[in-house]
């Protein structure tokens, strides 16, 4: 067979970028595909640094525009070009069981828009399924992935504070974002009185210049979400893409929707991908020796399920109905916010890319956690704090103007992120009749959290309030309603990793059991959700899988 490329990478987000970088740096001629339009680094960050007085409608949605993004709650008048056009490519959202799918619509995927929180897993996470019997065991452990975490961290740049916590291994940090006054106060009180570790959120934001990569350090602007021309925030455009392009081995095609992988039953391999041009609808087939699926968890699921062949009529690798099962996210929406009285002589200068973080402290130790009525763990982030906006809007005239020069009290919001269990009945699947503007079957979701998640959520809210109280905060508002699944934007688990091909979709090298030249390294491969934000774990597995793929390629096995 004639191949157009050595490898095809489907998707250009955080993992697609890493796959392209690793494969091209190791010599493979690689085609990177993305269904979205091109976003050039810096040049296409339309509203980066644009103050409200230069924004159309002062930063309000221009009339009629938001309708295009009616399912993209994370899109804003500053960022909508990065998000999915729901008027052409909607999903089916069951009002009885709402599911939130934050879906990218541009090159770079969610790597431009993500929260950049970066944490290593520990064996507490990797062994969780095995220990309590939920889901299937992970075929690898921390020791297997540890060097790949380091590899990714050294390239991307991670800031944070080394704490030597067994449940949250340290990354190789460069610099550290400071806490604000209220957070320092909280840290002192909670570490002193409850003995819990409090630190700063660990993120992929450069604290030092990286001239070797053409990236500058963070300027504390809070423009990460809009695209960072400094490259201090870790988009594909700023990081992995230039590295891949430098090799001369990378081809890119945007506006290229992969509708299916083409499976050859004789060789039991995928021989290529079918692409529909997002604008012209023209179809093209690209052939390659291997395919990396990095379309993002739910798009990868859609592609697999739509890859129907005579040999696999239910979709690629889905003879056992495992593809699309075990949808996970992190519990999100529960927590509490408190006010620190006084200290109004101080305020924040600058806008940080990270804030306070409370690492997992629950279900770490069987003796001290006997009272827990749930399994697994949770953590808290605390973005959105600092002095609130002015509080006194009464009256009019010079008095009002003076009031509006005074910021409000110090506020500290604690946002819980809780581990969810892999559950066979939580499912993403294709609608049988309705299709999107390019003829792809629409995605549907049947996902709801169970008893363990409900119990954990109650404790997340309760513990947030207790810590704030302990630290002397007042006016505590507790949020105890879990957000709809998907709202954490940590969707994962629909093509899980395992040793047993009857219970999983990929093996320990992220290779599909049924087609060893297909590697799934976006969130779909996750066998359990862990407690922490997942993106760096996806990146590390991607780099590891690419290394293995290249070995197989070079030895002629693929």
């Amino acid at each position, binding site marked *: 067979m004639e191949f157009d490329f050595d490898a095809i990478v489907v998707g250009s987000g955080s993992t697609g970028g890493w796959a392209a970088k690793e494969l091209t740096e190791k010599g493979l001629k690689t085609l990177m595909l993305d269904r979205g339009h091109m976003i050039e680094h810096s*040049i296409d960050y339309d509203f980066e640094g644009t103050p409200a*007085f230069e924004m159309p409608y002062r930063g309000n949605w221009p009339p009629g525009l938001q309708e295009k993004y009616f399912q993209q709650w994370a899109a804003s008048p500053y960022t909508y070009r990065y998000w999915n056009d729901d008027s052409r490519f909607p999903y089916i959202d069951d009002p009885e069981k709402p599911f939130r799918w934050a879906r990218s619509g541009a090159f770079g995927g969610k790597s431009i828009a993500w929260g950049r929180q970066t944490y290593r897993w520990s064996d507490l996470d990797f062994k969780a399924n095995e220990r309590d019997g939920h889901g299937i065991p992970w075929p690898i452990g921390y020791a297997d992935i540890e060097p790949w975490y380091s590899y990714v961290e050294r390239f991307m740049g991670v800031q944070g504070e080394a704490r030597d916590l067994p449940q949250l291994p340290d990354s190789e940090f460069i610099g550290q*974002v*400071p806490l604000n006054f209220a957070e320092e106060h909280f840290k002192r009180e909670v570490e002193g009185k409850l003995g819990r570790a409090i630190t700063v959120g660990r993120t992929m934001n450069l604290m030092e210049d990286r001239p070797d990569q053409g990236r500058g350090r963070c300027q504390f602007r809070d423009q990460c979400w809009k695209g960072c*021309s400094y490259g201090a925030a870790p988009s594909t455009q700023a990081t992995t893409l230039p590295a891949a392009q430098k090799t001369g081995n990378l081809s890119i095609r945007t506006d290229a929707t992969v509708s299916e992988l083409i499976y050859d039953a004789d060789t039991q391999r995928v021989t290529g991908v079918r692409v529909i041009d997002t604008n012209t609808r023209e179809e093209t087939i690209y052939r390659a020796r291997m395919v990396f699926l990095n379309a993002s968890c739910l798009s990868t699921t859609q592609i697999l399920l739509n890859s129907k062949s005579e040999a696999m009529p239910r979709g690629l690798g889905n003879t056992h109905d495992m593809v699309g099962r075990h949808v996970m996210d992190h519990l999100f929406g529960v927590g509490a916010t408190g006010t620190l009285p006084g200290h109004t002589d101080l305020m924040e*200068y600058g*806008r940080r890319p990270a804030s306070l973080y409370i690492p997992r402290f629950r279900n770490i130790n069987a003796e001290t956690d006997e009272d827990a009525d749930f399994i697994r763990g949770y953590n808290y982030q605390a973005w959105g704090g600092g002095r609130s906006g002015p509080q006194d809007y009464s009256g009019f*005239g010079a008095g009002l*103007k003076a009031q509006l020069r005074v910021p409000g009290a110090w506020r500290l919001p604690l946002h819980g992120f809780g581990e969810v269990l892999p559950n066979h009945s939580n499912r993403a699947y294709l609608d049988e009749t309705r299709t999107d503007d390019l003829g792809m079957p629409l995605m549907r979701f049947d996902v709801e959290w169970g008893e363990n998640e409900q119990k954990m959520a109650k404790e997340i809210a309760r513990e947030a309030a207790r810590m704030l109280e302990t630290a002397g905060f007042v006016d505590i508002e507790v949020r105890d309603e879990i957000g709809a699944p998907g709202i954490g934007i940590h969707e994962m688990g629909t093509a899980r990793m395992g040793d047993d091909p009857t219970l999983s979709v990929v093996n320990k090298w992220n290779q599909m059991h049924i087609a060893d030249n297909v590697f799934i390294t976006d969130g779909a491969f996750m066998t359990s959700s862990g407690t922490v934000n997942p993106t760096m774990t996806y990146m590390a597995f991607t780099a590891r899988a690419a290394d293995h793929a290249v070995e197989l390629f070079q030895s002629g096995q693929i």
Partner: protein
Amino acid sequence: MDRRKFLIAMNVALGSQMIAPLQRILAAQAQIDPVSFTGGAALFSDSERAAVAALSEIIIPTTDTPGAIAAGVPDYIEFMLSEWYDKDERIRFLIGIKQVVAYATVTQDTPFADLEADQQTAIVQRMHDGQMPVMRDGGRAFFEHIKQLTLAGYYTSEIGMTVERIYLPVPGRFDGAYPYAKAGTLFTS
């Protein structure tokens, strides 16, 4: 601040570290015009337009910093009403401003905008207190409406964001215990 100025500010903050794509943009990119609010369809009569301006200036007056008129709030209000509001919202505002104009004409025989400052302020105070005859809710609803539009327009204007408050597009660092006295107002981005 336009994009070009923003990039120059970044360049200063970065010293010699500015990356190649930015330098290219700086060299190539044409200046983007600040968004103009004169493009919307005219909505007000002359007397209404003058009354809106006077009312906005009473709500956010010129003090040690410029007030609503200097900040372009009247144009902002007319633009948002004609281009962004839906019909019902627009009519609600138009009824209110017509009532204020009519009240001044009937009771003082003078257009609202030509009244003495203390007479204007007295009318605003009556609306604020819900004591205006004829007007819905004694004028309180319209007062809240124009007040909120004025605040939204003022604090998103160039003057509101860069003169009344401190515009800080590229802070370059973070200080979580910065003395409020050094700023005396809020930072904007």
